């Protein structure tokens, strides 16, 4: 069961994929998009200070 934030992020990424690549291609990326959402969410919830630079 995915967290709401992952589900929301995955939906946003899937929308981006459909806009960029079309529905058929985006569908083939769906599982990868979900994994990407999980990973981006993990990074978004990591504690960083304003002073932390790239």
């Amino acid at each position, binding site marked *: 069961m995915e967290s709401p934030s992952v589900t929301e992020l995955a939906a946003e990424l899937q929308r981006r994929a459909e806009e960029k690549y079309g529905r058929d291609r985006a569908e083939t*990326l769906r599982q990868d998009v979900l994994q990407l959402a999980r990973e981006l969410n*993990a990074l978004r919830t*990591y504690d*960083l200070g304003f002073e932390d630079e*790239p």
Partner: protein
Amino acid sequence: MNLEALTLTEASNAIRTGSLSPLEYVQALLRRVDAVEPHVQAWTTIDRDAVLAEARQLEVEASRKQFRGPLHGIPVGVKDIFYTRNLKTTIGSSAFADFIPTYDAAVVKKLRHAGAIIMGKCVTTVLIFLDPGKTRNPWNTNHTPGGSSSGSAASVAARMCPVSIGSQTVGSVGRPGAYNGIVSMMPTQSRVSMSGAFPLAWSLDHVGLFSRAVADLAPLLESLSDSPMPGHPKIQNIGKFRIGIVRGFFYEKADSQSRNGIDALATKLAAAGLHVEDATTPGIFDLHPAILRTIVRSEAGAVHSQLIASKPDVYGPKLRDLVQLGMLIDSTDYLRARRIRRHYEREMVRLFDHFDVLLTPAAPGPAPEGIGATGDPVMQAPWTLADFPTMTLPYGLASNGMPLGIQLSAAPLHERLLLEVAGAIEGVIGFREEPEIGKTNRGLRG
């Protein structure tokens, strides 16, 4: 003298004493190429006329005791992502099939300055990612040589050149090094310039080195290094070296042969007098796949965004997925990954408060059967992200006769220490196996 079997160190010494001519050496290696290349397919391009012409010139200079540098007369394979002036550079792709650069990459310039002969361009996977090239593993040609530095590793293992240059963004040096039963090194990124090489992900791309002996890496690395290396590594009292075996994640990913092999080797190293202990990674270690993949995807997306639009047909399925996923990531998330990477580097380097080097399996197991994939870079990924200089060494054979490797890592810019420890471990291991080229069924080894 079996010239094809010479290490860089042996060949270099022989050239300097006059007992080996650069021309004789390169002619022997070209005969070796003729004999085994049909099985291994490590090369994209060899310009024999240019190689022989260069060897003749270096021979004249050597006869006058005029040596350009520590690599005088040494033929070196170069991964086909590094630009070579007037020599085709294909990046493993039909998109660049006829591309001939007008200048040398930084490492190629340094190799020439040190007196090396650019033997030829070694096969890379398609556009440096996971879609395989044509190269086969010299130990068993039904197995992958790994990638993306496929030809660089296979050419050295098959004794077509003593050393070669590759690159690593995730695991593209350590994995083929292990799969091919040879020594490899990925130095700290700032140690050797990637300028003039086609990128995969700029902030993670590292130059890589391949050889058949640890001793060969010091003169090669010194020739390529952008900053002075503090003297030649010497074998010190090995009892002072502290080795941290990292099990946990690495053992979960390794097969039973690899785990048992590392355990047995740890006992052997301790018996030889090295200090061996277990090492535990910090909590942020668990985040490394998310950090690494976000950076690789984003940067590869940026590298390829125009080419994939103009020439979509040159993209294999794996790279296409990577690039298109990368193009979905916005800058805030990419920069966040870069920021967290700094935290990761700071936390991980603390491991070296207690250890000189860390030891893990170099791959989940021996090179997998099949040439449709290049194996799993899972063992290299955490250290590449941390920018630890990392080596792989062969230590034994699996039950199917394929080589097994260990991976050693040190703190950033501590290549000298890494080479010292690796040399000591190499001496304890005493690996002497060689591939029988063309064998497709190696069978059990006694």
